[in-house]
C-alpha cells in the first residue's frame, strides 16, 4: 500500500508517495535499536554502581562550549543529582522507546542528553574526523522518532492514544508517539 504525503516546503508543493509497510517497519526497527542503545547504557551504569559523572561534567566539559552550564553540575548536590539522573534517564528513555510508551517525551529527553554528549565529546577529540559524529546522528534519530511518533507502531502509545483521558487532553499527543 502506498500513501501520498501531501505537503509543501518553502512554498513549493513537494508531495511524494510512501510505501506504508516499509515506513512502519523502519519506525519499529529504529525505535528498538535506539531504545536498546539507551537502555543498555543506563543499565550498564546501574550494574556497575556507583556511577560518577564528575569526570565528564567537571573535567571533560570544562573547556567546551557547554562548559559554563555543565560545570555547575560538577560538585555537591547537583553532581549527586546528575549521577542519578543520567543512568535513570537513559534507562527510562530506552524503556520508553522499546515498549513505545511516551515515545515523544522519551525521544525529546534522548535528544536533550545527546546534545551534551555531542558537544562535549566532540570538542574534546570526537570531532577529529569532522563534526558529524555518531552522537549527532543519534540526536537526529531521536528527533526523527519524536517527529514521526514512532510509538504508534506496535507500541503502548497506540493504546494510550485511544484512551478517553488522552482524547480529553489533546496536548498529551505531544508526549506519546
Amino acid at each position, binding site marked *: 500500500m502506498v500513501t501520498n504525503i501531501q*505537503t509543501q516546503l518553502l512554498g513549493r508543493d513537494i508531495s511524494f508517495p510512501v510505501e506504508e509497510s516499509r515506513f512502519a517497519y523502519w519506525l519499529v526497527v529504529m525505535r528498538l535499536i535506539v531504545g536498546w542503545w539507551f537502555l543498555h547504557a543506563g543499565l550498564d551504569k546501574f550494574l556497575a554502581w556507583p556511577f560518577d559523572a564528575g569526570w565528564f561534567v567537571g573535567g571533560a566539559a570544562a573547556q567546551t562550549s557547554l562548559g559554563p552550564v555543565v560545570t555547575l553540575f560538577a560538585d555537591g548536590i547537583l553532581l549527586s543529582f546528575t549521577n542519578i539522573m543520567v543512568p535513570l534517564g537513559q534507562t527510562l528513555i530506552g524503556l520508553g522507546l522499546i515498549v513505545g510508551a511516551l515515545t515523544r517525551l522519551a525521544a*525529546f529527553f534522548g535528544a536533550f542528553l545527546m546534545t551534551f554528549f555531542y*558537544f562535549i565529546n566532540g570538542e574534546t*577529540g570526537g570531532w577529529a574526523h569532522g563534526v558529524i559524529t555518531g552522537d549527532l546522528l543519534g540526536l537526529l534519530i531521536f528527533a526523527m522518532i519524536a517527529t514521526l*511518533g514512532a510509538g504508534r507502531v506496535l507500541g503502548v502509545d497506540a493504546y494510550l492514544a485511544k484512551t478517553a483521558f488522552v482524547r480529553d487532553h489533546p496536548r498529551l499527543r*505531544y508526549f506519546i508517539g
Partner: protein
Amino acid sequence: MSELTTMERVGLYGGAVFLLLGTVGMGLLEMALGAPHPVSGEGQIVHETLFSLSIRSYTILLGLILLAAYGVSNLATKPPQDPSI
C-alpha cells in the same frame, strides 16, 4: 507546512539553516580553504581553522536550540491540529 506562523518559520527554517551552516557550510569551506578537522585526535583544538571551534559549536547549538524552541512552543501554545497523529 503551508500554515506555519512567522515564529514557526524562524524555529524550523532558522534551526535548519544554522544546523546546516555549522556542519555542511563551514565544513565545505574548511575543507577547501582551512583545516578539515576542528580538533585533533588528542582532543587539541586546531587553530588553523577558518572558523574557531567555539563559533562552529555555537552555530550548530543555535540551530538545535531553535528547533527545540519550535517543538516546545508548539506544545505550549496549541493542541495538535489532528488528534490522530
